[in-house]
């Protein structure tokens, strides 16, 4: 029957997935980056690359956001802030690590004030490599994440292998 709980569940899930895929709002946090990735993320939002066509909007508050976009290695002072921003986000939440530093600590691996890469602090759902990644690469990474959202699965990314930076 049309009113069975299963059917209502299905409809509700369908609507939320549709809404989530079409308006994934992001929040951006720089936990020790050099700005390179940050300006590329910002460039992705502006008319030339126009990521808003996927319904993506940069939000100021973690409570409005679905995706946390992280850049840079995690410094000791920023670690607690990063966790706090993540905790404030509503479920389901996703984390995208942008740039080499976010993936492996990059050129800053081993510095005294660096805790490590983002994976050591938060579970990461997508990695976008590059120093910094081009806006096209950022769009590509985000679209891959959106495809997973559409299927209702959580991506299982493999962190790119890195050499020994020390």
């Amino acid at each position, binding site marked *: 029957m049309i009113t069975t709980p299963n059917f209502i569940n299905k409809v509700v899930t369908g609507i939320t997935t549709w809404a989530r895929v079409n308006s994934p709002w992001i*929040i*951006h*946090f*720089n*936990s*020790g*980056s*050099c*700005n*390179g*990735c*940050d*300006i*590329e*993320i*910002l*460039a992705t939002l*502006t*008319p*030339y690359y126009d990521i808003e066509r996927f319904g993506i909007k*940069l*939000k*100021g*508050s*973690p409570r409005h956001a679905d995706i946390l976009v992280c850049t*840079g*290695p995690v*410094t*000791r*002072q*920023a670690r607690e*802030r990063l966790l706090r*921003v993540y905790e404030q986000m509503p479920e389901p939440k996703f984390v995208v690590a942008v740039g080499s530093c976010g993936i492996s600590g*990059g*050129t*800053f691996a*081993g*510095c*005294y*004030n*660096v805790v490590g890469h983002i994976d050591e602090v938060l579970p990461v759902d997508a990695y976008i490599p590059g*120093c*910094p990644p*081009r806006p096209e690469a950022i769009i590509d990474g985000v679209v891959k994440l959106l495809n997973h959202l559409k299927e209702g699965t959580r991506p299982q990314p493999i962190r790119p292998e890195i050499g020994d930076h020390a």
Partner: protein
Amino acid sequence: MNTEARLQRAKDALAPFTRETFAPETNRLDVVIDAGDLTKATAAMLAADCGYLSAITGLDLGVEAGYMEALYHFCDAAAVTSLRVRLSREGQPEIDSVADQVPVASFYERELSEMLGVTVVGTPDPTHLFLPDDWPDGVFPNRRDFKIEDAAPVERDVPKIPEQGRMGNKFIVPIGPQHPALKEPGHFEFAVDGEIITGARMRLGYVHRGIEKATEQRNWIQNLYLLERICGICSHTHTSAYAMGVEKLAQVEVSPRALAIRELIAGMERIHSHLLWLGVVAHEAGFDTLFMYSWRDRETIMNLLEEITGNRVNYSISVLGGVKQDIGPAESKSIHKAMDYLEERIRYYLDIVSTDAMFLQRTRGIGTMTRDEAILYGALGPTARASGLVRDVRLDSPYGAYKHFPISIVTDERGDLEAKFAVRLKELLVTCFTIRTLVDNLPAGDLTVRFPRKVPAGETVSRVEAPRGEAFYFIKSEGGESPTRIKIRTPSLCNWTSVLNKAVGHQLADMPMMISGMDPCFSCNDRMVTVRRKNGSQTMSWFDLRAYGIEKYKSR
């Protein structure tokens, strides 16, 4: 006045305190003084008009030598006078504060004390500047015997960022460290009395990575790529300053063509940085159309940078001994075409920011800084030039190709936000002109010359004009494959003093514009900072504050 005369003037001023003098380079004078004479020597330098305090380098000479040095670098056009104060490595070395004479020195002194373990007596705020709150006591990263294992986090009660509430009849409005507008974490607390700001404080260090220490563990060539990543916006500035200093130490003569290409890229970097700034400040004012326009036009220069260097952000064009890529006829054609487009657009923006009535409400007469204040607070770059203070390394101490391709300096007497727009946009037009001249008159020569693996022992100072002001490098080599010490002082650090001091007495609604107006760059800085604090608190995110500023002006 030439450089010798300037150095002689400094020498005369310092004569009563001098223990020893050296002249390591033709434009430098090193004067060894006693720690007790520091404040008097600083006063003598300022009284004789021997330049401004540009940086303080903390130098550990190692366990065998048994002492450390604090170097107070005064820059006066091309002349650099360094006061060297010797300090014991044992016990608790002490030095007097000069922050009452030079306000910006409070930042340098905090850095000195936490990085080298020197107690600065009488400094306004001795708390941590760069290092995290959980840093152990008695561990100083810039000492030669520092080990990363010693720096394990310790449990302690750290002052939490205030949540909400009020104390007495004052509010503190904390902003950050997470805020969407600046793209970088910094934490500000403004004490407000109603609408008016009565005190300002900031805590950075969220992006502090420890690059200065890391340079000592990497070789000369690896450092080029590490230092490039101090800041993604002015990456070329850092590689140029570093390469220039190391080439001076190694006595390697770089070809004029390579120098001209470096200047060309520096000009393009300035265009991208200023257009980025224009967009961000327009966004703070609620003028998003200008934000989108300027960022669209910025893509022109990004494409050009990519065409020439292969990279949009970290160009990696400088190498030790020259540059990697040449400018051919195809590139010069694209450069001219891009300049045609950009010049037209910049003129249009200049027209908007100086005539649009709505926009002028947000900029005219806001944050006005007089020339004397700019000198006192040690402002640099466009922030200083908008107050009529001509401070530009490209003019004061022409380096590289600037000797042959000089630039004209844009200044403005008004000192408010409007003047900052005018200075930066006119500077863009000048830069476009310089780029055209450079492309048309590129000198002949090899791109690179051979560079040795080891750099001879010595110390050098290298100064470069970044888009935000003077970047200061002090490089010391002991003849090995790695540097012994690299001290970096970036321009945003100096400009913070001016913004935080000018904030007092302004409306809270003007703060986002004023902070963005100096074009702050946290990643360069955090490698630092604070001013004042009062009690009480109310939480307002940067986003809310920005929205509040826009609303406030809408309802007037």
